[in-house]
């Protein structure tokens, strides 16, 4: 299958390793990945902070860039959620943007949806001999309704021990600009998330969104908690020949 990758601006700029893992994984499964070069950002930061016009411009760019693609993979739960849940609100009903969004948005998926629903695979042949706990990010959980898709993928990874995270469904406190506008509350939420992660005894906390992982990981690193964070793609791309580096 031909899969268009919407890398997202955060992954593109700060976490290229996640994108490389996605490419490695999908090519290993026999699929073709394309990267439309005109892509930039979904506009989530602008939209969530109250800058609707800027977000609208980025939405226009997004639908123009990906209009012809059969399936668009966004390896970030909140960016996929932005397109599916918020783009329809950004476009005036009856407008051309609204029409384009209605046509494209259902084809924009997160990695776990792509694998489980579109490609119908849960065993991707991965090997990752570590104890892992999974944090279901808010937008993956409540906007995309990913359910247990990520855990089903993780359970098939050879060598991987999946352990339960206490208070898993509670927000980590990132929330985009919330993390700096309300830094004290954000940090208090991250501290609780980090404590729960450390309590699992896991080596790795996994999620489908690098923004949340940047926040949780930044807190864990500052505390020298000894728990690493990894995007789901990097665990699923990991094999005995090419193991993910911890």
């Amino acid at each position: 299958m031909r899969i268009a990758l919407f890398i997202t601006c955060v992954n593109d700029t700060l976490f290229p390793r996640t994108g490389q893992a996605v490419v490695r994984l999908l090519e290993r499964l026999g699929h073709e990945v394309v990267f439309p070069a005109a892509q930039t950002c979904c506009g989530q930061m602008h939209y969530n902070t109250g800058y609707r016009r800027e977000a609208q411009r980025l939405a226009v760019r997004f639908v123009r860039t990906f209009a012809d693609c059969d399936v668009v993979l966004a390896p970030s739960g909140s960016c996929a959620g932005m397109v599916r849940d918020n783009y329809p609100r950004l476009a005036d009903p009856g407008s051309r943007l609204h029409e384009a969004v209605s046509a494209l948005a259902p084809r924009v998926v997160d990695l776990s949806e792509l694998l489980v629903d579109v490609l119908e695979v849960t065993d991707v042949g991965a090997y990752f001999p570590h104890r892992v706990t999974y944090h279901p990010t808010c937008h993956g959980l409540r906007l995309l309704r990913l359910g247990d898709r990520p855990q089903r993928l993780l359970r098939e990874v050879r060598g991987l021990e999946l352990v339960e995270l206490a208070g898993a469904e509670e927000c980590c406190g990132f929330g985009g600009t919330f993390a700096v506008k309300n830094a004290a509350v954000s940090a208090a939420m991250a501290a609780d998330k980090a404590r729960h992660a450390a309590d699992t005894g896991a080596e790795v906390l996994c999620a489908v969104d690098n923004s949340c992982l940047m926040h949780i990981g930044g807190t864990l690193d500052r505390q020298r908690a000894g728990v690493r964070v990894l995007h789901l793609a990097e665990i699923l791309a990991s094999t005995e020949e090419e193991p993910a580096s911890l």
Partner: protein
Amino acid sequence: MSATFVGMPAFPAAARAATGDAQLRHNLRKATHTIRDRRRAVVEELDDWPRLRAAGRAVKDRVLRHLDHYLERLEEAVTAAGGRVHWAADAAEANAIVTGLVRATGEREVVKVKSMATQEIELNEALAAAGITAYETDLAELIVQLGDDRPSHILVPAIHRNRAEIREIFRRTMSEWGVPAPDDLTDDPAALAEAARRHLREKFLSAKVAVSGANFAVAETGSLVVLESEGNGRMCLTLPRTLISVVGIEKIVPTWADLEVFLQLLPRSSTGERMNPYTSVWSGVIPGDGPQEFHLVLLDNGRSATLADTVGRQALRCIRCSACLNICPVYERAGGHAYGSVYPGPIGAILTPQLRGTTTELDASLPYASSLCGACYEVCPVAIDIPEVLVHLRERVASGGGHTAERAAMAAAGWVLNDDRRLGLAQRAAGRMRGLVPRRLPGPGAAWTDTRDVPAIPAESFRDWWATRERGGGPDARGPADGRGRTEGGR
């Protein structure tokens, strides 16, 4: 007299102070988690909860769409049943009406049923200014009043207090207001309840005037409905000669059949009970039974303006259950006082800026008091999409005065992000600076690095790695782009 919220600092500053209060955080965490777990259990046992929720939403939307019609219907029915209806455009008008009505009775004291509307208009303070003392009779409201405190939760106004603090408040202040607390009062819940019972009993038996709110007003019969857990409300609603109810105009349900939906939704969502312990319903006046004079004060106070906003109006569906407060990770850590309003938590963050406007620093900060995690929307029994309204109100705030630096930064970011070449150039510039990022950032960046490490900037963006790979270049085209160390990629 209870303190008011005037002059509160903006949410982030107040919340910062609250996060440092270990006792407060412990009290809140324990209380909210207990109620949220109970709610989850009694909601999950119903297989038709999503349909009940949809019905609740639909009923409220119908009322709001035809509010003019239902308000007149209610007025007719209340009048026909022997009550009198008064219309109040704002808090000042409502306070003047109630003060005038109490004065007309010649009484100087009133007993109060727990009511959000009268808290909202600060009725107690207005009555005090007119020489009338209002006694709160809901146990938690009593604790707040005796402690010269402010409510911090819609359902459990004294949620920030533990029983040791309550004992102290009772011992110190009960005697100033009436029957004192016994000398040997302990912090045993039964002993505390008994002290409150003795203190309040005197008020119930002597009061000639009661003031209440209402959870619902049934338009077809002019019936008012109050749900409570203690029975204290019922004392106030039945014993005094005169009853004055202050009710927001959005509290209407058209018929008793509609009410049935909410009598299921509300107890399960608020206290986590299947059925509410004390549900009082009254329609006008019945000669020889209960209050012989009944006044209904219908309160606007910003509600019509809220109704005019097509996105924000859904906040008027709220039935004040508090499920959104109890699930909210921000409320749990910031506490209710940080919201500077009788309506704290997620619903307060969308209701207060609509009812009061966003002209003060505090009110303008409320729409940002959320990580947009969506847990509030998920538990709301009338499906108010709180994150949607928060974002909508952020637009309102961001397009108003102030926010100059942020607007400039957002415009600059928008300019860079709206062109892939500009983004690529910015990424390459950042890549060249990667060694220079300090562990602790100056200025606004410190808000991040005070508690969190910053991600390391990779030498090469994904798009550059992809371009190199497409050109067939690079010996390591399939692997990590730059042989970076283990923390590369930001972690």
